[in-house]
Structures are given as structure tokens and as C-alpha cells.
């Protein structure tokens, strides 16, 4: 049962989740929000296990799964994400949610699903794991059941999610029909020998892109994103914005690298166009937003566009770049959301204009958000700069200048709306009521979480060697180099 050892982290999480669900029956109501701590502990344990797999390359369970540096990279990412989401949740959950034990359990299950996605080397496994992630998110989005916005978000999300998974499945069926198999390696082999499997495979790819585009919020499959981000409970939005996207990309990158590379010439331009549409629309519409959650939603769409830039030229470099950018984006966005969550907990606010004068109330909080926003904008000192630089330069290396030019141009435009938030926090004077001048007190654990994330953002921004190496190893693993 050696294979089992390598899925031990997932098992740990499942066990933790079940344990928490069980604890729900015995614990008194007001201590339930604290279940986040054992849940977080579970992610830490799993994280330790996952890291110990670094450098391993091994096929598991008849090749449906594979543990390699690529998988480890993403698993670490998901666990970190899960950890911070859990850490950031209790205060919010206490205020706004019922059934907090289930809430944490669902988060853990979603993390399990995402981890499985990153290992999966086969369409069915990957699909069903992705569904696990999605179902977690469906339930989480609608979790604030008394809130009409949360209901609406959940309804829209699950219906569109079902629609998209139908599209994805139709695509899988076509790929399966054309290649006769769902294993990436075999698909690749088929595609190589039977030069071009005709319209069937191509349409299958289009549908796969559509289905995965939904998860990563690529235009025009992004429409759910802003609504769900806005409607879902804040910690869920935080989780969603990085988890769903990263899971989708974990699926997409491995699939395209291991399975569809031989027919790359057929889909590269289409994906380039997709990337441009995604970032352009994301940025343009983000400028119009008044709600911080919606702003971050459109920003996340734009970020998906940046990552997609790497897909049309799938090489070791661009794949590493995409992974890197995702990782940077994940910590950054989480940081931003943690601040928003905290601010919302303290004040109940989420409009951008309500962030005015925040720097007067808590400079560290405002600085943290500013750091994250600058990082999202791709400013130096912060993660976003390095990861974008790496990614875009890798793409440029293959002569896709038009794509890079669009991407860089877009990142400039994006600065505008990030700056608008920064302006509200630092520049615009706060209204002169008592409430606005009260300093915010940050609980120790929130402060620790924020500091850790800020540290990560700065670490990637200032000395990214280790993480770049990790991403490169991960990328090498799927390219089999």
C-alpha cells in the first residue's frame, strides 16, 4: 500500500473534516467557530507531509494520480490557501454564519479536491476532483443562507457550474472518443501518431477550455465570478478567488502539457485571444467597480488573463511562469482578502469608498492592503512584479510579442483601479464622525496571518530564487525533462 502513503495528506484532511463534522454534534454553539483551529492544524500536518514528497516522482493508482514536483507545488499552494482561509474565518463566521463546523469541513473537502486535481493525470479523476472543489464552493457560497445575496450567488454559481461542467463533460467525451482513452499520456501518444484527430478532438479541446475557463474565470466564461464573489461570504470569496482558479489551472496546465501538446499548433492562437479578452475585459470593468469584492473579482479575472498568456506557448519556462504567477497571486489575493475580511468584521463595510481614511484607523492594515494591491498591479518589491516578469519574459522568448505587449499594457491599466483603492485608504480624508476615527484593533492571530502573507509577498518580490526553482522543478516534472 505504498500508494496510499502518497495520498496520506488528503486522507489527513478528510479525517480532520469528518472529525470536525462529528465535533459539531457535541460542541456548544458558541465554541464551534473555534473549530477552525483544528482544521488549520490538519492543513499544517498535511502540509508537512506534502513537503516531504518534494522530489518524488511516482505514478499512483494505475496512473490516475501522480505525485511529482508539479503536484507538490500546487498541493502546497492549496494547503497554504486553505490554512489562511481557515485562520481568517472564525471571527467572520461567528458574526455572520450558522453551521460553522460544516463550513470548515467544506473548506477542507474543497482543498482535498484541489489537491487531487493537481495530481490527476487522467480526465475522469481530474474532472471528478474538480467537481469536489466546485461542490464545496457551491455549498460555501450559499452558506450565509439568510442573506439574499448569498442565496443568489449560490444559485447562480451552481446552475452555471452545472452548465459548465456539462460543457466540460461533452468535451471530455469528444476527447475520449477521438483518443479512445482518458489518460493524458495516451491521449498525447494518440495525438502524435494519428496526426491530428480531426474536428472531434478540436471541438473537444474547445469545450475543455470552456469548462476550465469557467473555473479560472476566463472571459467569456467569467460571468459568474463577480456576482458570486460579491454574494458569497467573505472568507469563501477569498478562498474561491484563489482556490478555484488555481485548481482550474492545475488541471489545465497538466492536461495541456502532458496530453495536448502534440496538437498545440491548433489551439495556441485561440487561447491567446482568450487571454487577451480575459485580461482586457477584467481590467476595463474593474475600473468601474464600487465594491471591493467585485473589484477584486474583476481583478482576478484579469489575473487569469495574465496566467493564460502562458498557455499559447507551453514550454517549461512558461509553465513555470504560470505556476509562479499563480502562487504569487494566491498569497497576494489572500492577503488582500484577509484585510478586507478583517475590515468588514470590524466595520461591516465593503464599498471602496468606505475604505476612506483607513490608514488613519490602522496603518498596518492599510499598508498590508496596499502591498497586496501593488503586488497585484505588478509593482516591484512585491511578488506580482517578479512573477509577471518571469512569465511574460518566458512568453516573449517565443516571439509572442503581441501577447506580451497586451499583457503589459493591461497591467498598466490595472494600476489605475488598484490605486483608486489605495487613494481611498491613504488620501481621501475620512468623514468626521466618531466611528471613522476609532482605531482598529487587530487580534493577534489576524496580525500574525497578515504578517505572514505580507512576508510571503515581499519574499517572492525580493528574493524569489527558491520559489522560482520550485516552480521550475514542477514544470520540469510535467514536461518529463
Amino acid at each position, binding site marked *: 500500500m505504498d500508494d496510499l502513503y502518497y495520498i496520506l495528506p488528503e486522507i489527513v484532511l478528510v479525517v480532520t473534516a469528518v472529525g470536525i463534522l462529528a465535533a459539531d454534534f457535541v460542541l456548544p454553539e458558541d465554541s464551534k467557530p473555534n473549530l477552525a483551529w483544528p482544521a488549520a492544524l490538519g492543513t499544517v500536518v498535511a502540509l508537512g507531509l506534502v513537503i516531504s514528497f518534494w522530489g518524488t516522482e511516482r505514478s499512483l493508482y494505475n496512473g490516475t494520480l501522480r505525485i511529482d514536483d508539479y503536484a507538490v507545488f500546487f498541493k502546497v499552494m492549496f494547503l497554504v490557501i486553505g490554512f489562511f482561509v481557515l485562520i481568517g474565518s472564525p471571527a467572520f463566521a461567528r458574526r455572520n454564519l450558522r453551521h460553522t463546523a460544516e463550513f470548515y469541513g467544506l473548506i477542507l473537502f474543497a482543498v482535498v479536491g484541489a489537491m487531487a486535481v493537481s495530481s490527476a493525470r487522467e480526465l*475522469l479523476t481530474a*474532472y*471528478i476532483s474538480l*467537481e469536489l472543489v466546485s*461542490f464545496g464552493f*457551491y*455549498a460555501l457560497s*450559499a452558506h450565509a*443562507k*439568510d442573506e*439574499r*445575496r448569498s*442565496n*443568489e*450567488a*449560490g*444559485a*447562480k454559481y*451552481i*446552475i452555471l457550474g*452545472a*452548465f459548465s*461542467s*456539462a*460543457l466540460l*463533460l*461533452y468535451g*471530455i*467525451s*469528444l476527447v*475520449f*472518443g477521438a483518443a*479512445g*482513452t*482518458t489518460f493524458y499520456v495516451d491521449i498525447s501518444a494518440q495525438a502524435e501518431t494519428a496526426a491530428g484527430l480531426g474536428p472531434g478532438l478540436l471541438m473537444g479541446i474547445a469545450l475543455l477550455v470552456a469548462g476550465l475557463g469557467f473555473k479560472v474565470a476566463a472571459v467569456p466564461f467569467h460571468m459568474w465570478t*463577480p*456576482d*458570486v464573489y*460579491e*454574494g458569497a461570504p467573505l472568507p469563501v470569496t477569498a478562498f474561491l478567488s484563489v482556490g478555484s482558479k488555481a485548481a482550474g489551472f492545475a488541471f489545465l496546465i497538466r492536461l495541456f502539457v502532458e496530453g495536448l501538446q502534440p496538437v498545440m499548433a491548433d489551439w495556441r492562437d485561440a487561447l491567446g485571444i482568450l487571454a487577451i479578452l480575459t485580461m482586457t475585459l477584467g481590467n476595463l470593468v474593474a475600473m*468601474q467597480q464600487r465594491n471591493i469584492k*467585485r473589484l477584486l473579482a474583476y481583478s482576478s479575472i484579469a489575473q487569469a488573463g495574465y496566467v493564460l498568456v502562458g498557455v499559447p506557448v507551453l514550454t517549461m519556462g512558461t509553465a513555470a511562469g504560470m505556476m509562479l504567477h499563480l502562487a504569487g497571486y494566491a498569497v497576494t489575493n489572500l492577503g488582500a482578502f484577509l484585510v478586507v475580511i478583517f475590515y468588514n468584521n470590524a466595520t461591516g463595510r465593503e464599498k471602496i469608498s468606505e475604505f476612506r481614511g483607513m490608514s488613519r484607523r490602522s496603518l498596518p492594515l492599510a499598508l498590508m492592503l496596499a502591498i497586496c494591491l501593488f503586488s497585484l498591479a505588478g509593482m516591484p518589491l512585491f511578488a506580482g512584479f517578479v512573477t509577471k516578469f518571469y512569465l511574460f519574459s518566458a512568453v516573449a522568448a517565443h516571439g509572442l510579442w503581441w501577447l506580451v505587449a497586451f499583457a503589459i499594457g493591461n497591467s498598466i491599466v490595472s494600476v489605475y483601479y488598484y490605486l483608486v483603492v489605495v487613494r481611498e485608504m491613504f488620501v481621501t480624508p475620512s468623514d468626521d464622525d466618531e466611528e471613522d476615527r476609532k482605531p482598529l484593533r487587530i487580534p493577534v492571530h489576524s496580525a500574525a496571518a497578515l504578517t505572514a502573507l505580507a512576508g510571503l509577498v515581499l519574499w517572492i518580490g525580493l528574493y524569489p530564487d527558491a520559489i522560482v526553482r520550485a516552480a521550475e522543478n514542477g514544470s520540469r516534472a510535467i514536461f518529463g525533462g
Partner: protein
Amino acid sequence: MIEAVPLSHVLFVGAAMFAIGIFGVLSRRNAVAILLGVELMLNAVNINFIAFTMYSAPSRIVGQIIAIFVITVAAAEIGLGLAIILQVFRNRANINVDELDLLRW
């Protein structure tokens, strides 16, 4: 026997059902009705899987297994979907999706 029906015809049936499902999703206002459309689409997918695995795939089993999973997912989807829609109904007394517009732009 059944081999007289070419694979493409079976696939066309699947495609047609999928398209009908799409039409359902796109044209309906009632959230439950939309879910019905999704169910049609998932069934169409299953037709594809069964057709492929029976006609052309190296393995006669894989497609069937996938179909089982699809059915599972479809059931789960309808279950959770209906639960959420029910909650929407409780809070708004109405499940027309074009009145779900608190969130937009």
C-alpha cells in the same frame, strides 16, 4: 444489427439532446426548469460516452464507468441545486432567474 447505425448518428442524437438542453438552460426563467435543461445536457454526454465506448474505444468498460460518474454528479448537482433554489425561494418567494439581480455589473 445495431451496427447498421453508424456511430455518427448516435453522436448526433447526443448532440441534439445537448443542444436541446442548452436551449432549455438559455430560454427558461424558472431555476428548476434550467436545472432540467442541465440534466438533459448531462444525459446527452452520457449518450456520447456510451456510444464511443461501445463503438470505437479500445475498452468497452471505461465509457460506462464514466457514465456512472456522470450520473452520480448529475444527481448530486440536482440535489444541492434544488436545496439552494429552495433557500432562494424561501427568502424571495420566487425563483425566476431574471429577478435574481441583486448582483450584477
